[in-house]
């Protein structure tokens, strides 16, 4: 079995008998220790602000101060004996000497539990998303089109929604403005923000999401031939309904290199959709999505 160094000298805990009213621990002393109640009753009192508020009572077997000792979390309560009691105090030296005798795996269990708890607690205050630029784009995409909104209001509201820090929001606003997805205006001391085309922000969010998940984005992976097909379909009447082979020959007249695989790809990308069994039409929304993405590629990539 993997164990720690058992030759280490163990410092024993302190066992004390106290009378009712005795202060076992006071935050002012700053001496950290785990307090275990063996007999009697202890009361935890909050004395901040001058008042004495009873927070909880301890009964035999209860203990306090573990987080304070193990993780140096501040412990702001006063522990007072409400009855004559017997108390065991484990100070830092005592605990360390005992922990050193534990098997390594048990020490690892203690550390893992502490680390996981710390991580969970920290996550309560962490931003809701790791990609704050994508998040801000999603937020701005929902602002009313061509309407000036005060930048301070945006920072306040978006910060509240996502817990992203003000400094990061300001950087992200600049990043969106550089891409020309939003326009910034300054009037006196007030800066306002306006979204001229929310659709571009929608595309940008999709781009960011896809890059995060797969490292690439479909509209920017199109071959020259696929781009030709896209332009051809964009000029095709979307009332036109044909079966697969007819579409293939229709497109082959305009883009010679096309084959069946390309036709399947067109369907997968949603450029043509099956409206009735076996019959297809151009999906102008999808065509517009890809065309706009290509038109604003430099904005989306941020390489203006």
């Amino acid at each position, binding site marked *: *079995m*993997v164990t720690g160094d058992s030759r280490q000298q163990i410092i024993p*805990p302190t066992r004390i008998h106290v009378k009712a009213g005795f202060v076992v621990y006071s935050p002012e002393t700053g001496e950290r220790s*785990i307090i*275990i109640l063996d007999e009697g009753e202890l009361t935890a009192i909050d004395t901040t602000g001058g008042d004495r508020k009873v927070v909880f009572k301890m009964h035999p*077997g209860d*203990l306090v101060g*573990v*987080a304070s000792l*193990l993780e140096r979390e501040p412990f702001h309560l006063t522990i007072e004996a409400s009855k004559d009691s017997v108390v*065991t105090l*484990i100070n830092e030296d005592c605990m360390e000497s*005992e922990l050193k*005798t*534990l*098997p390594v*795996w*048990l020490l*690892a*269990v*203690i550390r*893992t*539990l*502490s680390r*996981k*708890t710390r991580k*969970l*607690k920290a*996550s*309560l205050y962490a931003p*809701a*998303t*790791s990609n704050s630029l*994508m*998040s801000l*784009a*999603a*937020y701005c995409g*929902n*602002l*009313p089109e061509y309407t000036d909104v005060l930048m301070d209001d945006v920072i*306040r*509201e978006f910060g*509240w*929604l*996502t*817990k992203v820090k003000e400094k990061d929001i300001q950087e992200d606003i600049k990043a969106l403005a550089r891409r020309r997805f939003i326009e910034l205006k300054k009037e006196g001391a007030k800066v306002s923000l306006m979204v001229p085309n929310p659709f571009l922000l929608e595309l940008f*969010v999709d781009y*960011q*999401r896809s890059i995060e998940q797969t490292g690439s984005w479909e509209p920017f992976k199109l071959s020259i031939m696929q781009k030709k097909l896209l332009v051809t379909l964009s000029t095709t009447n979307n009332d036109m309904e044909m079966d697969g082979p007819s579409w293939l020959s229709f497109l082959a007249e305009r883009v010679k290199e096309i084959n069946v695989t390309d036709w399947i790809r067109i369907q997968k990308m949603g450029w043509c959709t099956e409206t009735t069994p076996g019959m297809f039409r151009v999906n102008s929304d999808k065509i517009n999505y890809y065309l706009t993405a290509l038109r604003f590629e430099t904005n989306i990539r941020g390489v203006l």
Partner: protein
Amino acid sequence: MIVTAGEYVCLESDKANTLFIVKSGMIVAETQDQSSGERYINFGPGSIIDELSLLEGAPRQYTLRAAEASELIVISKETLNDTLEQKPSWITSILQFLSKRFHIAEENKRKNGLIQSLPPFLYIISSNLKKSNTNKLEVKALLKELQALAGTSVENATKLLEILQELGILKVQDNVINASSLQIVTILYETIKYRALNKKVSPNILSMTDQMILSTFLKVARESSSPRPGGICTVTTKQLCDEAKKSMHGFTLTTRTMSSLIERKLLFPSATYDIHMPIEEIQFFYADFDKVMDLIELNRVFPLLDKKLI
């Protein structure tokens, strides 16, 4: 325990009371529970896995598979008990305390996650309803936008949809969200936002008396022939006072009791308003029927929402 590459060590949710320590190699953990945002986790040499199975017999947290030939040390419950028997009892108490504290932190995160998901959830629904000027939104679109805006999990979004359905604000049918009114989600969002950003109660939250007066006003307006909905409706002072006596257990309306609603521009008097004048001198009151109805609905839902979330 020696495992070859690709071999499964255990399956998620299996009953267990042992802990694994990776001595060599690499173990891949897969979980269906994506609340942590991670689906796959790699455990290399020195990692410990499933400490809660050892301490409290919790089911396996992950499905474990060896990414390469690996060696694991398995610590059993018996080994733990034997070790603790030789140690002072407070070591056991510390372990119990730490695992209890971990569960409290987990629960807090779960609750907090749901509470914090509410504002982005309402923001997305509200702005989409405003943009489309309909009271419909596809669930798929909501989930996609929520993920991008606030990393909201499908689990939390689904739970919020359930809560708002229970409160009668939304209805989900064929994966389409229908809001009970075009404005209610927006008013709810603005009210929560006001409370959070200004640290005080929103003016949309009314006193019990104001709510009762407005409810009485709506009741009379519904029974009268004045134009509604979407329009201004008018109620005579006599009708309002009579109904208030009936439905508010003999409550007598005065100009003073009406003043808060008049000042907040929720009800408008027909004559120039003065707090000391007898109410009979005001011939009638008028108001935006839909606005008043949404406000009453908001005041019904708001306290219930807090309870449901907590």
